[in-house]
């Protein structure tokens, strides 16, 4: 029984930790992401809003199964352009609360699964 209660405690503690992580994250600076200086994304905004998932889903199959990289619809490209930096110049994850991906996905309540596996900040240079 103690084992179970410790499990539940642990689960609670862990979720608490994740919640905390969001709170203490450094403030992202507006205008620090590349997309904020561009007129539009790889397609017109309205097209992107509606179809971005179809684009990256299609691309993911091409990349994984056929090895086609660096096309304009890559998720790495999304992250690269849409991640803001904080005051110290460090990237803030795109899926963090209030950031580009989270903003809409939170609003429409659609789970964002990409970043369970994919990097949330642009690749290091």
């Amino acid at each position, binding site marked *: 029984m103690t*084992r*179970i209660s410790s*499990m*539940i405690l*642990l*689960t609670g503690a*862990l*979720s608490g930790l994740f919640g905390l992580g969001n709170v203490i994250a450094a403030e992202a600076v507006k205008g620090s992401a590349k997309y904020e200086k561009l007129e539009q994304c790889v397609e017109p905004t309205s097209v992107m809003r509606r179809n971005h998932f179809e684009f990256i889903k299609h691309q993911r199959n091409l990349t994984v199964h056929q090895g086609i990289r660096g096309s304009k619809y890559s998720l790495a490209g999304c992250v690269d352009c849409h991640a803001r930096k904080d005051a110290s110049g460090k990237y803030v994850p795109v899926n963090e609360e209030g950031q580009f991906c989270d903003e809409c996905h939170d609003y429409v309540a659609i789970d964002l699964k990409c970043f369970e596996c994919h990097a949330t900040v642009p690749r290091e240079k």
Partner: protein
Amino acid sequence: MKKIHFSEWGIDSPRYWGMLALLGAFVAVAGLSVLYMEHNGHWVTGMTNQIVWGMPHVFAIFLIVAASGALNVASIGTAFDKKVYKPLGRLSALLAITLLAGGLAVLVLDLGQPGRLLIAMTHYNFKSIFAWNIYLYMGFMAVVALYIWFMMDWRMNKYYKPVGILAFLWRIILTTGTGSIFGFIVARQGYDAAILAPMFVIMSFAYGLAVYILVLMFTFKVDGREIGDVVLRRLKNLLGVFAAAVFYFTLVYHLTNLYGTENHAYEAFILRDGGIYTLLFWGGWVFVGCLLPIGIVYHPALGKTRGGIIAAATAVILGGLATVYVIVIGGQAFPMAIFPGKTIVASGFFDGVNGQPFLYSPTLAETLLGIGGIALTLLLTFIAIRVLRFLPTSLANEVADPHYAKS
């Protein structure tokens, strides 16, 4: 033989709801275990990159194997026209579905990505026996559900026999498929054997019947329904035959293995040096699972008592769990022979250095998930027999025995 009547399980409400609550609690605890395992990841289980299938798979495979076996009683009545088995058919088919549901639930909830079940339904690799099994399991449920309907609905009675035969054939293929999950693994010494498929079929006969006997006796006892010796004697004799058949296949499996030198190390591991696996093999698989029930069933005095029959069926189930444990975990714990003729003396990734077996100690959470599968099976069964007419009102000799009038 009189006309058979069926009725809903009529035990009084407090007792019924009490049972459901207890089973529901087990299922809920299993659910919490799943949340815990899925939230954290599989590091909270005893499963590793060496022992990749653990306790949940032992329970799941046992339940799935037992599911197809539970249908046997109905098949004997339908496909082989044994009259005395006909009234037993409905419960038998029901158990086939509920056992399968319990087993599949455990299997699916242990996946690394249980949320992607839809992918398993939409992406098929037809070379995979696993993918075939998904069809076989779903098809089995559908066929057996149809079978139950035709058994219960007199208007459909004329189609009942062909569906019964179809269900019987389906279950043979299904268990062959389950056995082949292991039989097709060419890489591992313990698994690469065609005999595993028929052995799983025989195991399913024994485990399914044992579960059936226990559920039948329990549901009848608490509801004050009568089971005559004629029915029980048949069932327990059949159980004895099945336990003996499992024993026979066990013998053949290991004797053929012992004949080939390449399998000597594996056989020595299971039969002599494997610690817990050796203990479970001799104590669980062979003694409790085979010899003990055979001894009880054919004992002139013990075999005639209800207690003896309950003990024999329980032994078959416990021995069966041990058997599946030895096959699933023991088969993985024995290091693969990646380099025949050589001994691995150092490795950066646990390759069975100096032939040492891999360690596995199941944690509470994964064991609770497995037990939850059994609870789910019983829960579904008890709900079904309460709302539909699965149980004959009586299986007393004068009702169930086709030769009663003559004798």
